């Protein structure tokens, strides 16, 4: 509450108003919005300007008993000021009107409360103070004494921000009006620092103890180099326009010939009797006597009185004149009517006869519309296709034949029309086509199998030779040119630069697993020179294409060659021959069983496409 009192700056001017009813105590104050401590930025003290507020004035006696109370709904002005008269408020509370109180000279206290929200319900106490001096003029009124309450204010002196108010027969009081100022104390600042910036056309106006302002004078700036922008002649008025300036107009009527214009129109022609009066625009009328144009009878207003058609003769009668006749026969065809109809049209050959009602027929020869032969039923004939030139000749009966080039339909890359149809020819095992030496021949031996026995020639290599595939063909090569693989428990990877690796067991037996991993050899030569030899080949189905297995059978021994899986598997036939003679081998391939008899010859197998295939 104490702070609220601080926050309200009240300028209390009290005076008893008694010249009128009801009487009252004038009260003037400035309502300031208080500086409130807030989180962050505190609110500032500002005039509570142009807001609705509600005041409550209460008067207590010296025993603190309430004697009078009233409220005032009012509005502050721009400066937060209010001017009220205590005693003229709303809702005056007990015990009645202000002037009914006992103003007997005992102390009375005035409590001023304010509701910022103007609801007259939420009161902030502004002051509670004893009434002094002027209000006690009420006492003067009620006491009937010699004193009067008709004092006048005798002076109001402003010194600095302090306003001293003097009153007749009373004490002066002072009020500090500093809060109404802007803080600097004077309003007598001078203009200073007038600067004109010709570059930007800006005038800077400075003020003492204030902030300078800039004025943009560019709209006043200009030059004397304006150009005439237009000249427009409207009637006799010439309007001249200038750049960045106002237009001006000149009336050129004085330059005319006096009549104003030469484009006058005749406005009227009036015939009165034989006098023709002609009127002209902007000019004088003139009259012409046309009596000389008359025939002496005085009038030219005869009317045609009759028109009679007799046959083809039209007679025209005129008032006061002679009739005249006109023969209209030339307009007719002689028969008297022009409404004939065509009655027939007959075409005989190329002759069209046209008949007309009441008239003579006429004929027209339409032969010129024909091609001369008289019919349109020609047939196509003589279709000839010249394959050499790809030209189709289309002939027509009784007409001229036309040629059509079909070259666009022929895709002849070599532009040689003679080699389009060719034959396949087989030379030994080479398949090729005729008439095209550039075509690639196909060697069919690569696709033949042993069923094509008649076409297979197996040449047994000579002693100490192997069959090798070099440069696109199989050749016999001396073993001395091959790299032999000696016995080892395992074989490291051979250098890829070595083109051919050969495994050559001298005396394989059932426990010899040296060829368990034949990855390291390209050619394995098995020479069954000893009895009961066993060779077990492992991982045959995982070999790479091109690996060669060469079996050399030199005597009637009983080799047993097994593999861990098909497709290469040599199981000797179930008959006893297989154990006595190695002259029949059953080879299982992916295409089915392949029986082949080997007698004292060698056979080579190549790993190709996942199968061991006999080599041809």
């Amino acid at each position: 509450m104490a702070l609220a009192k601080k926050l309200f700056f009240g300028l209390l001017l009290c005076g008893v108003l008694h010249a009128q009813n009801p009487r009252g105590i004038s009260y003037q104050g400035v309502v300031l919005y208080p500086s409130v401590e807030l989180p962050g930025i505190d609110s500032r003290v500002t005039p509570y300007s142009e807001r609705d507020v509600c005041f409550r004035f209460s008067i207590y006696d010296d025993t603190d008993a309430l004697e009078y109370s009233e409220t005032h709904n009012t509005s502050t002005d721009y400066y937060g000021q209010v001017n009220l008269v205590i005693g003229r408020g709303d809702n005056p509370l007990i015990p009645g009107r202000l002037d009914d109180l006992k103003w007997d000279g005992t102390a009375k206290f005035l409590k001023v409360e304010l509701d910022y929200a103007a609801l007259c319900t939420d009161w902030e106490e502004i002051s509670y103070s004893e009434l002094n001096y002027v209000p006690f003029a009420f006492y003067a009124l009620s006491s009937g004494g010699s004193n009067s309450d008709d004092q006048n204010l005798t002076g109001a002196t402003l010194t600095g921000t302090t306003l001293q108010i003097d009153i007749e027969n009373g004490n002066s009081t002072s009020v500090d009006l500093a809060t109404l100022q802007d803080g600097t104390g004077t309003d007598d600042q001078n203009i200073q620092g007038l600067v004109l910036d010709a570059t930007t056309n800006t005038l800077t106006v400075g003020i003492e103890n204030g902030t300078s302002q800039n004025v943009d004078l560019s709209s006043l700036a200009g030059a004397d180099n304006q150009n005439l922008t237009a000249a427009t002649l409207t009637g006799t008025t010439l309007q001249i326009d200038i750049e960045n300036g106002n237009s001006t107009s000149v009336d050129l009527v004085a330059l005319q010939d006096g009549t104003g214009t030469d484009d006058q129109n005749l406005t009227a022609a009036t015939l009165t009797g034989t006098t023709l009066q002609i009127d002209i625009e902007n000019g004088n009328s003139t009259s012409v006597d046309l009596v000389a144009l008359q025939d002496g009878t005085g009038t030219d207003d005869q009317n045609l009185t009759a028109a009679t058609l007799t046959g083809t003769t039209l007679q025209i009668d005129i008032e006061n004149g002679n009739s005249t006749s006109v023969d209209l026969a030339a307009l007719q065809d002689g028969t008297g009517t022009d409404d004939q109809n065509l009655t027939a049209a007959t075409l005989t050959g190329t002759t069209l006869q046209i008949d007309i009602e009441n008239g003579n027929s006429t004929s027209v020869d339409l032969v010129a519309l024909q091609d001369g032969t008289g019919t349109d039923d020609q047939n196509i004939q003589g279709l000839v296709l010249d394959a050499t030139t790809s030209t189709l000749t289309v002939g027509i009966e009784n007409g001229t034949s036309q040629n059509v080039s079909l070259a666009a339909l022929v895709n002849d890359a070599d532009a040689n029309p003679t080699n389009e149809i060719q034959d396949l020819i087989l030379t030994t095992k080479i398949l090729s086509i005729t008439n095209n030496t550039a075509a690639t021949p196909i060697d069919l031996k690569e696709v033949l199998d042993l069923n094509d026995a008649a076409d297979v020639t197996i040449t047994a290599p000579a002693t100490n030779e192997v069959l090798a595939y070099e440069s696109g063909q199989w050749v016999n090569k001396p073993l001395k040119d091959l790299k032999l693989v000696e016995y080892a428990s395992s074989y490291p990877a051979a250098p890829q630069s070595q083109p051919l690796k050969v495994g050559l067991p001298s005396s394989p037996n059932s426990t010899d697993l040296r060829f368990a991993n034949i990855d390291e050899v390209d050619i394995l030569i098995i020479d069954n020179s000893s009895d009961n030899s066993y060779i077990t080949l492992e991982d045959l189905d995982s070999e790479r294409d091109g690996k060669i297995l060469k079996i050399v059978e030199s005597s009637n021994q009983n080799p047993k060659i097994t593999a861990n899986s098909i497709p290469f598997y040599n199981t000797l036939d179930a008959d006893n021959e297989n154990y006595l003679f190695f002259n029949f081998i059953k080879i299982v391939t992916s295409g089915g069983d392949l029986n082949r008899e080997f007698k004292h010859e060698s056979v080579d197998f190549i790993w190709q496409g996942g199968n061991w295939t006999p080599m041809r």
Partner: protein
Amino acid sequence: MRFFKTALPFLLILSFAQAVKAQSILFEFGQTSSKFTHNTSGPEKTFYNSKGQVLKLSLAQDFLTNHEVRFGATLFEANSLGQVITTELDYETQFLGLFTMANFNIFSLANRRYCASCTDFNFYINTGVQLSTLVGGSQKIDNIIYDLKGVEDFKGLWLSPILGAKVRFDASDIISLILTYNFVPMFNFTDTSEDFTINSSQISFGIQLWL
């Protein structure tokens, strides 16, 4: 939202730097409801709750079977409306803070509808402490807006105890969904010249990724 965008990369870097050591990483977003209290002499001031947003990124490590200890960063708004006499007040503030929290599992409820053996509802009581600082804010008095950054009452560090609850739904072996409510009263222990506190309630939804 602008301060979320600017601070998000920082939070992501922080999370990845610690992810390799954490058992789970939590990403939460939600709303705050805050109200200022400012007890000074003078005209009565009335403050009202105002909503804001909150973003939290934290790492969690299990301890004592099913309890969790968490450490993380948070970016949140603490807004409040108010009135003094006839003047309307509107505060919008953004804070960046670090927090550590212990989540005590009070009971679990199996969700056998989806997974009889591995899916649970877990209920936690949260306690912790948060240290935060103002990163941006404004105060509007009768349509005049002031920047609060560096203003005495707001600058410095704010200490906050945290008390709340959390529900965790284990959606799979690697992802859990979490719903958290925390009451976070904020006290500025750098500036104690005024009796000014901010009471903030935060409710957030998020995911917990198990590393």
